[in-house]
């Protein structure tokens, strides 16, 4: 019948239009790359914070690579004279511990598991937050209420004590699992602020247009909503990663976590309990892991700050009257700042 005919042409027309027929997949990918990756990167690179952040992270990745490829000796007791100072013996540039362990080896061989751990924790936290935040914000109604009550409940449980109890219970040795446990409840606050952003975004005309055109909910969430959240998510990804590092090092330092893998926190703990605080000749033992921690977190913060600049027009331009930013929903700017 006539009706079905128009129907099918309608479908054809739409699909054709959506995938712009004169454009091959690779071209489209390239365009997406240009628009979503290259351009922001170029802008990001222009900011000194991001540049520094990337350089620092690159350095840590390099360290991890050195460790994985075995380019530096493994740490072991009595591999060197005890209490070598910084740069005293260039074979052991960072010096050695009370039991003659090469500090550089300790630092370097801790890097891969720490990077793995903070990435896992950040992926977990932001992933869950995006899922719950967008679903609650977009769906609204009962789904929203349920999800938000749940995240309120999670928020009510103090993070570190819960992590400690879980760590004792599960005794996690795998860095990925450990990262996830440390951020087990981190997503809740982030999910809440994402939800309030989704509430604003979903009122936009183009979302409304998609909805009236009958585009399915998952597609709207994926195409119209999540891209708009990406800036905020990226920044918070970095902060979540930093939190994992701070918390894990802190817990290793306390001796709460199992010592199966190398970690700067373990080194810190041994140095602290080995009395490095009281003798100048052992100060480097304490200093090396501290510097490693602060360096990585500085890199992460710079990256986060720089990204915020790139993505956040309200910070970027303040030519009043030129563009009126409507992004007023930055409620939890302070949330990300934790330990």
């Amino acid at each position, binding site marked *: 019948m006539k009706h079905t005919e128009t129907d099918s042409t309608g479908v054809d027309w739409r699909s054709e239009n959506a995938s712009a027929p004169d454009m091959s997949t690779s071209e489209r990918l390239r365009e997406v790359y240009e628009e979503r990756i290259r351009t922001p990167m170029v802008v990001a690179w222009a900011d000194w914070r991001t540049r520094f952040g990337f350089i620092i992270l690159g350095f840590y990745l390099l360290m991890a690579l050195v460790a994985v490829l075995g380019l530096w000796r493994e740490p072991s007791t009595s591999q060197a004279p005890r209490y070598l100072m910084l740069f005293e013996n260039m074979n052991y540039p960072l010096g050695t511990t009370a039991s003659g362990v090469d500090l550089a080896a300790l630092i370097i061989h801790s890097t891969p598991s720490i990077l793995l751990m903070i990435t896992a924790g950040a992926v977990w936290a932001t992933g869950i937050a995006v899922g719950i935040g967008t679903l609650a914000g977009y769906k609204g109604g009962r789904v929203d209420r349920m999800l938000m009550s749940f995240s309120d409940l999670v928020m009510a449980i103090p993070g570190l004590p819960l992590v400690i109890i879980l760590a004792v219970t599960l005794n996690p040795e795998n860095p990925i699992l450990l990262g996830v446990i440390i951020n087990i409840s981190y997503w809740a606050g982030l999910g809440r602020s994402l939800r309030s952003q989704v509430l604003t975004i979903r009122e936009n005309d183009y979302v409304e247009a998609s909805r009236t055109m009958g585009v399915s909910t998952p597609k709207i969430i994926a195409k119209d909503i999540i891209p708009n959240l990406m800036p905020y998510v990226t920044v918070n990804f970095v902060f979540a990663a930093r939190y994992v590092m701070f918390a894990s090092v802190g817990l290793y330092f306390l001796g709460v976590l199992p010592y199966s893998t190398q970690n700067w926190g373990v080194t810190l703990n041994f140095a602290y309990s080995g009395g490095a605080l009281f003798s100048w000749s052992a100060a480097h033992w304490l200093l090396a892991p501290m510097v490693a921690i602060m360096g990585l977190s500085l890199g992460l913060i710079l990256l986060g700050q720089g990204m915020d600049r790139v993505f956040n027009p309200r910070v970027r331009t303040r030519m009043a009257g030129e563009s*009126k930013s409507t992004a007023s929903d930055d409620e939890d700017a302070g949330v990300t700042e934790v330990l």
Partner: protein
Amino acid sequence: MDATDPIIEMRNARVTYDDGETFVLDDVSMAVERNEVVGVVGESGSGKSMFASAMLDAIPDPGRLSGEILYHKDDGTTIDVLELSPEELRKFRWEEVAMVFQGAMSSFNPTMKVGGHFEETLKAHDADVIEGMARAEELLADLYLDPERVLDSYPHELSGGMQQRALIALSLVLEPNVLVMDEPTAALDLLMQRSILMLLQELQEKYDLTMVFITHDLPLVAALADRMAVMYAFDLIEVAPRDQLIGDSGHPYTRALLNSTPNLDAPLEEMRAIEGQSPAPINVPSGCSYAPRCPLATEECREVDPEFYETGVGHSTACHHWERARETIDLNFEAVEDDAVGADTEDHA
């Protein structure tokens, strides 16, 4: 039209950004007569907001305003707004010339009651608060608002139309002589736009106000204005009494603007969008800024920036070919224009 009693005279006003390299207001001169309503029309990015802000010397920060803004006080003295000390300027604004911005929703402090805005304004100008609040209530009542309720509400508790009217009342609370309005109805629906316009007309008569009404919406302001001015690319291009401008405009841009305006009476196929884009502040072409889009443009237009030609009584047009424009560019609503405007004129006069 009595052209002898101007209240504000703007002379060679220019607003520059970036150390004078970017113009957003380019040598604009215009006089506003006492107690008249001037409608200033321009598309977005034509510099019309700058025109409005310039009258109060309120250009947003990096911008620099030069030229003269003369203000003739009731007592006959004249001041140059740009020469005022900060304290004098602070007094001048709102006591002599007040301004209403587009988007009333963002003009109120979201964490302060509407009444608080009135009170602090009165206090800042050392006015009698009790007397002033009584005036505020009267103004609100004039605008068909329930004064007590509105004053005791937070901005978000009022609808867009109510906020806009409250903002108008706030702008008049110190009894200024001039009210400058920058797109005061942009965010409102058509019905609300109409009623606000009616209220403005009543206020204008009741308080003998001079109004400068800035908008992109030509028909809207045509219902209210005595005189109209058209802005294009950071400069005025035509100024004329309202009926003149609508019925007998001499500038091709004005005529194109009139033809592009949705008009219920005009058949759809006669509606024309204006082709091309208005220039960005950096690269305003030499010669007539409209030349690249103008169907009548000649070599002369591209080289010589047209001065104002006297094209009728109180009618100036910045176009070399104003006569040809009148002849060759037909207005698509000519047949009905007379009643439409006529009806408005009646309740106006």
